[in-house]
């Protein structure tokens, strides 16, 4: 069949087989190329590794996943990174829906608008394997919302509260599920409030406060064996400090609405599919009124709206082929403004993101096929048509100053394809080899950005309307050894990125921001190369003890061998867990080696290595209905910062925390 010629035969373990969290004593199987983390509140000890502190944020969970690091500009709103790649190099989605932040300074990656209370799981795909939701070079993070559950129990839920001493931080959370025979409803909500925290040396880290409210609700109706599911997510953040940046967030508001139809009855060649239509909007306003020594007050609001629709599903088995597909369309429009108020003079207005829109439609096909009893192959391919448009008006007039011939719209086609081969060797060894190609379109900032000030190197960044897509040729090799007591896997990866998007100084242009060092303009460089390894270990020493270890290492440089900026050094986290009856105690050692491979033209400096120790304990009482947890993070009160922390701002010192959760 023609479709089969186009579809490359590919094999991997299916997602259903390989959830990291399995609520029993046997070792769960970790998917090699796809990592899924369950985040819903249960007492599983592995889940306690990822969500170590019940007040943990979505970012805290992500920071423990293989290959994932966080760029920290403030204590809340850290930006996820996979193997050193971030922002436009990744697809970050919520339930497969695209959403884009509204801040030119990357203060609102969309993970800031989602709470662990809302989530049932997070799936991370690395490299071009993340192309299911869009052609990509760096990978994909999909945060899956908890859906209403049909259950014989009419009403169930959880409520709890948490406290952190280091920031006098309070967290209240609750979730609930109501079920009847034909319909089910759920909600989750969370409120956080924290003052600025103290670092290890006793100094208060200024502007590290935040306040946040989140509510998510869903309704599901069953129609025969199919279902209709509607959900809404509301997230408001106020007064979120960003210590490393010149401004904080005054208000960050996200609204997400979705309607999903899931069909499981056989319907022609498609066995099961779901259609989701959605709309989300983000409003983000930066604020400098809390800062001292502000030379000139400025208002910086930004807005981003996305609407989209996708269909994804599985075909009926054709022989041994497991074919699945996804086709999607989304349209994102965004604009960010800046108004400056000089003393006794006319206000100055410009658009840092000119009003623009981007429409993307694409198709993805995947096939998993067993070549033999011990060999599986998975192949997938994606193609996207991307149209980017700048709207007439102030924003376009501004950019004409740099690009007089700027065209109103441009179209680019991006594609990705991957082949993964899995081979069982004997009974305990699994090898997986992956090779793939991916592309990604430049972001709004990289295309239309207008004098975006970068605090790290002190330059104003200006977009380039003539950028080419960034490409990636990648390869990964994984070896996993497992038996009843131990599971250890190591993955080596290599990524070669031609036309890497970077920014270089244009000496002929004076900067706009007072005190800036100059202007940098985005352009494609020859290439960048990333390589490294992730090693994970999971072992039961006996029925009571368990060790989890996740180590990550990335190295990246451009074609001249100069290190790329913002690359984390070798990081490792080791957790020793002891569980006995209703008790569980965990001690963690989190650390990193020093990072001396730095890029000075980006304003980086070397970062010393560090190690912090955390102690955690948890007790489930009243037939597991009440869970009391507490612990000490950064036991030694170390004064430290990680390499990806902007401005070398110190991390929190010794923090005593406790959480109480009641389930009903």
């Amino acid at each position, binding site marked *: 069949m023609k479709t089969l010629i186009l579809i490359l035969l590919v094999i991997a373990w299916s997602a259903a087989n390989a959830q990291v969290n399995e609520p029993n004593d046997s070792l769960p199987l970790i998917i090699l190329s796809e990592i899924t983390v369950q985040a819903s509140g249960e007492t599983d000890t592995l889940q306690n590794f990822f969500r170590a502190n019940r007040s943990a944020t979505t970012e805290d969970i992500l920071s423990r996943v293989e290959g994932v690091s966080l760029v920290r500009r403030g204590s809340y709103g850290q930006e996820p990174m996979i193997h050193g790649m971030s922002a436009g190099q990744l697809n970050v989605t919520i339930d497969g829906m695209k959403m884009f932040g509204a801040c030119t300074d990357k203060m609102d990656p969309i993970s800031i608008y989602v709470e662990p209370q809302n989530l049932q799981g997070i799936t991370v795909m690395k490299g071009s394997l993340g192309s299911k939701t869009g052609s990509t070079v760096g990978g994909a993070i999909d945060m899956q919302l908890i859906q209403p559950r049909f259950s014989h129990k009419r009403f169930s839920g959880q409520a709890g509260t948490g406290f952190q001493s280091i920031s006098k931080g309070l967290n209240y959370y609750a979730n609930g599920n109501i079920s009847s025979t034909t319909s089910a409803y759920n909600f989750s909500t969370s409120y956080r409030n924290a003052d600025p925290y103290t670092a290890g040396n006793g100094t208060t880290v200024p502007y590290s406060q935040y306040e946040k409210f989140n509510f998510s609700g869903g309704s599901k109706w069953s129609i025969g064996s199919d279902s209709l599911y509607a959900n809404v997510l509301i997230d408001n953040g106020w007064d979120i400090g960003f210590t490393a940046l010149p401004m904080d967030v005054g208000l960050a508001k996200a609204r997400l609405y979705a309607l999903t139809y899931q069909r499981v009855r056989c319907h022609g060649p498609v066995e099961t599919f779901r259609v989701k239509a959605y709309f989300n909007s983000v409003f983000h306003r930066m604020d400098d009124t809390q800062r001292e020594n502000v030379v*000139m007050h400025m208002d910086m609001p930004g807005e981003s709206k996305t609407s989209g629709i996708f269909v994804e599903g599985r075909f009926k088995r054709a022989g041994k082929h497991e074919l699945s597909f996804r086709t999607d369309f989304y349209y994102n429009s965004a604009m960010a403004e*800046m108004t*400056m108020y*000089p*003393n006794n*003079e*006319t*206000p*100055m*207005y*410009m658009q840092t993101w000119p009003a623009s829109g981007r429409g993307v439609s694409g198709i993805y096909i995947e096939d998993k096929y067993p070549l033999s009893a011990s060999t599986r192959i998975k192949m997938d391919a994606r193609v996207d048509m991307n149209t980017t448009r700048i709207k007439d008006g*102030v924003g*376009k*007039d*501004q950019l*004409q*100053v*740099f690009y*007089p011939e700027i065209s109103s719209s441009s179209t680019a086609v991006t594609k990705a394809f991957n082949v993964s081969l899995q081979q069982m060797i004997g009974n305990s060894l699994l090898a997986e080899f992956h090779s793939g190609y991916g592309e990604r379109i430049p972001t709004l900032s990289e295309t239309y950005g*207008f*004098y975006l000030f970068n605090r790290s190197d002190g330059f104003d960044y200006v977009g380039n309307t003539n950028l080419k897509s960034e490409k990636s040729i990648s390869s990964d090799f994984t070896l996993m050894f497992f038996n009843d007591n131990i599971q250890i896997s190591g993955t080596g990866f290599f990524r070669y990125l031609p036309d890497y998007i970077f920014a270089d100084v244009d000496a*002929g*242009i*004076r*900067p*706009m*921001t*007072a005190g800036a060092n100059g202007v940098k303009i985005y352009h494609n460089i020859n290439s960048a190369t990333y390589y490294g390894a992730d090693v994970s270990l999971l072992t039961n020493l006996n029925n009571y003890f368990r060790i989890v270890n996740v180590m990550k290492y990335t190295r990246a440089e451009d074609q001249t061998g100069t290190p790329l900026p913002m690359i984390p050094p070798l990081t490792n986290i080791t957790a020793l867990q002891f569980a006995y009856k209703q008790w569980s105690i965990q001690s963690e050692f989190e650390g990193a080696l020093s990072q001396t491979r730095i890029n000075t033209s980006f304003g980086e400096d070397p970062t010393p290595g560090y190690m912090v120790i955390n102690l955690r304990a948890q007790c489930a009482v009243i037939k597991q209905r009440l869970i009391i947890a507490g612990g000490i993070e950064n036991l030694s009160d170390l004064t430290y910062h990680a390499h990806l922390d902007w401005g070398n701002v110190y991390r929190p010192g010794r923090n005593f925390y406790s959480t109480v959760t009641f389930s009903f």
Partner: protein
Amino acid sequence: MKTLIQHSIIIYFLISLFACSDDEVKVDPTAGLAKIAESYALGAGVKTELWAKEDLFTGYNNLFVTLYDSITNEQIVESHVHLTPTMTMMGGMQHSCPVINPEGEEAINGLFPASSVFTMPSGDMGTWSMQIRVHNHVNEKFGLANFLVDVKSPVTPRIKSFQTESGRKLFVSYNFPATTKIGINDIEVAVFEMANAFEFPLVGDYQISLEPEMPSMEHGSPNNVNPIVDPDGLYRGKVNFTMTGDWRLHLTLRRGDDTPQSFYFDVTIH
């Protein structure tokens, strides 16, 4: 089919008949302009109106003259139009200022465009009057219309003057043909020499460099185009404004071995 074509032709004819009626609403060419004064050009039977983009100020003023036959009220779109601004000082002395008369004798959209670069404001120094000489092609008569006009000092100076080493007195002023906005703006610079109290010819042999800056932020903008002289004697270039607010246009005029003349104009972009 034949009847259809016939019907179409009739309908089309009827439409075009009505489309060309005299009661059609005409776009008023003076919409958006400020009326400065009106007077009758005695001797030619012409009602003369003087319009401008804004109230008159010291600097480069875009003026528009409209002419109507004083008996029939028909608009006159063909005439020789000649403007002579005159300032009468306290004490009786009189002088003029640079002026650019309409090219040719055809009105554009009913307007005769001209420019007048008033060199000082009305007030203690004296009063300005504008004399417009017109020619009514209907009765073949010439006439003079006289207006008293009020010239004010603008918020920020829009004309500068300097003396060359050889003693010539020069005036420099600028004009934006379109309303200023963020982005690329066309700009005209006019350099006039005071040959005598009544003659101010355009000077076209300078090299002008133009650099915009926002004084409160000490930044400029890239890709500006220095004004270059055109056959009509005005210098034309492009100024780029990257945001609204208060900007300063730095000009430097160079000519041969003369000392370069530098000065600036402040403009506010909305």
